[in-house]
């Protein structure tokens, strides 16, 4: 976690994943107040589980529910250990924490962050252990309360000694004070784990009662809208006067933006529009590092620069094209991307002299607490952070910018403030997924072995941007995720990253480094298969030794009828990824629209994500990731002209519609391995699978994303 000390906006996610430190200690840090057995109030047992008088079991989770179903997945682990009925199970977000001793920090990297598809990886064993401990405490509590022995777990939230049966609620208060039990034995039954349990959050999400950040209502709150400098990096030259409009309460200078506060959101939005164009900004004097055309030219020159300037992420042998029988030398391009969470950035804050209470849709509690504390001159323990449901996160809501703005507004106004960005502000002030220009050189020998690979990714470095300014070669392993350590049998390889200098604010996007490297790798693998004149699926499988990798390719071969001729007018393309602790192979079946553009008819996926907690939710993430990855591949790019972001709303950043969604078929490959991630796995393979199918169909190789840049929605 060394990055935590240096990076104001947090460690790079991939680095966090690497820093699995001390063994996990069951966190029973939260104080337990002993209650009398008669008390009707809910009883908290340890940090995670609360039992109320109706015998409902409520799980508090540190991970953020942003659509991926983690609340339900973790609740399934708990229900399994407690053998309760699913109707007794509830889940909610725990209060946010930061720093040492936070029981809700992901045990994988000891920080309360939801990202990198790590929640189930991190919590699978600790959460089961915590629940089994509570189970044993309830059993011991029954024995102590009745002064009898022979107690064991019953059904439907009970404990029994054969003659007497008590509910969890009956014994919870006594159980909460039990200490000194031996390490619990984990139940390995599969009443809940591996089952298609219904999501706990769905009823509230279909009746409108689910509370997202935007929906928070606090007594006495006022409403803020913000205007950032249209040029990235600009600051407010002078605080503007309060717009002369009824209901406007004030303006707040937020350095890079101005907030207008009003007694309702609509008035705040209109007042913000009044201000637009009237604020004097100090714009950056040099915007060349925030201009798409200039950046593209710089990237091109860095593609062939001396290797001494590059970070060599992986070097095996001495790759050379000199002795190769056939060679590939191609360049792949990927744009900057926006996150476009369905729920724009927003936050509600209530700051008083000695307390800062926050309600936020956040994936980055670890970062928010110190940032908010610093913004109001308080210590971390004075910040109370409530995590709401997130209307999408995708990596954007790990940032603290929008939260700090709300905190500063509330501090200045002295009342609770709900701050909401407009969609235009949201698109223009994103932390953008880095662009990438990737050159792949590869050589085949006479037997079509890939003997040499030289891979260079020229891409803005998130780590460089967030690290200390003295560091010029950031060794950004995140930038080569999806290229480094590939499971393919390349005899010699060199994987390089050259940081493209830019001042465009960068951030993590769903499937991080893999979101760009996998397009280059899996496109290049197809091009190599063509050079070798070998079926691209077989070509991959024969160059993989890992049986799990081979198995997903074989599974998708069967699922997609790969060996059979596709329907007339269609061709199939394949892509593979080992990433996020999982293995995935995807086949896209692609034809042409009447306009001659790409029509994606069907997607087939085989995934091995280790032990499956909820097959239905793995499938949901596959479906969602495909829709996400396909929209990005077809249309998405964030461009910049002299520091001004050009994407303004969904009108020039389109998504699929119900009718343009391809049919998706999914095969979950059974596995006993530890759970891997599923939230990001399917996103990176969509673009190469489609490009590979299109190349087969039309003999035209698409090496640049998106396939249809601009605002015209070509294809599908």
């Amino acid at each position: 976690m060394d990055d935590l000390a240096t990076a104001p906006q947090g460690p790079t996610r991939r680095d966090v994943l690497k820093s699995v430190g001390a063994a996990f200690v069951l966190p029973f840090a939260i104080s337990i107040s002993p209650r009398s057995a008669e008390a009707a109030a809910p009883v908290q047992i340890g940090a995670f589980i609360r039992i109320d008088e109706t015998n409902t079991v409520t799980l508090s989770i540190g991970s953020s529910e942003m659509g991926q179903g983690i609340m339900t997945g973790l609740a399934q682990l708990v229900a399994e250990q407690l053998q309760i009925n699913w109707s007794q199970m509830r889940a909610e977000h725990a209060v946010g924490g930061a720093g040492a001793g936070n029981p809700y920090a992901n045990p994988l990297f000891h920080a309360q962050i939801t990202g990198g598809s790590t929640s189930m990886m991190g919590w699978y064993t600790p959460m089961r252990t915590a629940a089994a401990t509570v189970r044993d405490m309830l059993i011991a509590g029954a024995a102590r309360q009745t002064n009898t022995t022979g107690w064991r777990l019953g059904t439907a939230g009970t404990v029994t000694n054969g003659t007497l049966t008590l509910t969890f609620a009956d014994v919870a208060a006594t159980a909460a004070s039990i200490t000194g039990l031996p390490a619990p034995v984990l139940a390995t039954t599969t009443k809940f784990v591996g089952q298609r349990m219904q999501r706990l959050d769905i009823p509230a999400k279909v009746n409108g009662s689910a509370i997202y950040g935007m929906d928070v209502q606090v007594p006495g709150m006022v409403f803020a809208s913000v205007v950032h400098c249209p040029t990235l990096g600009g600051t407010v030259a002078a605080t503007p006067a309060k717009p002369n409009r009824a209901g406007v309460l004030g303006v707040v200078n937020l350095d890079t933006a101005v907030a207008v506060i009003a007694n309702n959101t609509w008035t705040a939005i209109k007042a913000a529009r009044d201000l637009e164009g009237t604020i004097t900004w100090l714009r950056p004097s040099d915007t060349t590092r925030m201009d798409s055309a200039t950046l593209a030219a710089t990237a091109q020159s860095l593609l062939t620069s001396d290797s001494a300037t590059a970070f060599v992420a992986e070097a095996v042998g001495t790759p050379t094209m000199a002795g190769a029988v056939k060679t590939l030398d191609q360049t792949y391009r990927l744009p900057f991307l926006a996150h476009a969470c369905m729920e724009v950035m927003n936050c509600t804050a209530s700051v008083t002299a000695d307390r800062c209470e926050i309600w936020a849709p956040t994936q980055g509690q670890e970062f928010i607490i110190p940032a908010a504390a610093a913004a109001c001159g308080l210590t971390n323990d004075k910040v109370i952070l409530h995590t709401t449901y997130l209307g999408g996160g995708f990596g954007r809501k790990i940032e603290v910018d929008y939260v700090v703005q709300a905190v500063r507004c509330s501090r200045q106004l002295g009342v609770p403030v709900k701050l909401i960005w407009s969609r235009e502000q949201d698109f223009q002030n994103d932390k953008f997924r880095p662009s990438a220009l990737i050159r792949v050189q590869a050589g085949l020998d006479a037997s079509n072995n890939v003997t040499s690979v030289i891979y260079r990714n020229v891409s803005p470095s998130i780590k460089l941007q967030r690290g200390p300014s003295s560091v010029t070669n950031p060794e950004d392993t995140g930038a080569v995720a999806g290229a480094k350590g590939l499971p393919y049998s390349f005899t010699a390889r060199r994987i390089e990253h050259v940081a493209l200098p830019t001042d465009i604010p960068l951030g993590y996007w769903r499937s991080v480094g893999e979101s760009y490297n996998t397009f280059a790798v899996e496109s290049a693998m197809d091009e190599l298969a063509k050079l070798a004149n070998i079926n691209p699926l077989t070509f991959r499988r024969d160059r993989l030794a890992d049986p799990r990798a081979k198995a997903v390719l074989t599974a998708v071969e069967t699922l997609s009828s790969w060996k059979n001729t596709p329907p007339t007018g269609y061709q199939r393309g394949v892509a593979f990824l080992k990433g996020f602790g999982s293995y995935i192979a995807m086949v896209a079946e692609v034809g042409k629209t009447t306009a001659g553009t790409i029509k994606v008819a069907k997607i087939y996926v085989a995934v091995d994500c280790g032990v499956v907690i909820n097959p239905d939710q793995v499938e949901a993430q596959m479906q969602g990731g495909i829709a996400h990855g396909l929209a990005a591949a077809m249309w998405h790019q964030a461009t910049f002209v002299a520091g001004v972001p050009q994407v303004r709303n969904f009108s020039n950043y389109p998504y699929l519609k119900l009718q343009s969604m391809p049919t998706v078929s999914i095969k979950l490959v059974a596995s006993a391995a530890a759970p891997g991630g599923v939230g990001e796995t399917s996103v990176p393979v969509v673009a190469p699978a489609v490009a590979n199918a299109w190349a087969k169909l039309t003999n035209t190789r698409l090496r640049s994303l998106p396939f249809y840049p601009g605002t015209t929605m070509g294809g599908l």
Partner: protein
Amino acid sequence: MPTYTLNVNGVNRTVDVPDAGMPLLWVLRDFLGFTGAKYGCGIEVCGACTVIVDNQREHSCKVDVSSVVGKKIVTVEGLSGDVDGAKAQAAWIANQVPQCGFCQPGMLTATTAAMKAGHHGKEIAPEVKHICVCGTYPRINKAMTGL
């Protein structure tokens, strides 16, 4: 400050608003406490703000509050009291549709309005051109087939 009486989910509510052109979305959310309708784009592209007004779907981000006086407004919070709305909600649960869920109030209200306009099964999808960034499209399509 104009005063209007609005019928939302079958109940009349009187509200003072800053101006007659205030979009229904913000009246519902800030003044009446119906936060089910969401702000997503403000320009009638995403559909997250959709509500039903006299059986028709409307983008509440662009409907002036003054234009819906005397009409029956139904938000996602009121769908359970409507035969078609309740069916749509049940189909959404049976098919485990929502992920983040933020787009779903709009999807559900638009689906209900399409049913009221006589569309059923596969005819509904072309009527609902909303955005779901999470990509729940396959499940929505499936849920609609039974409606």
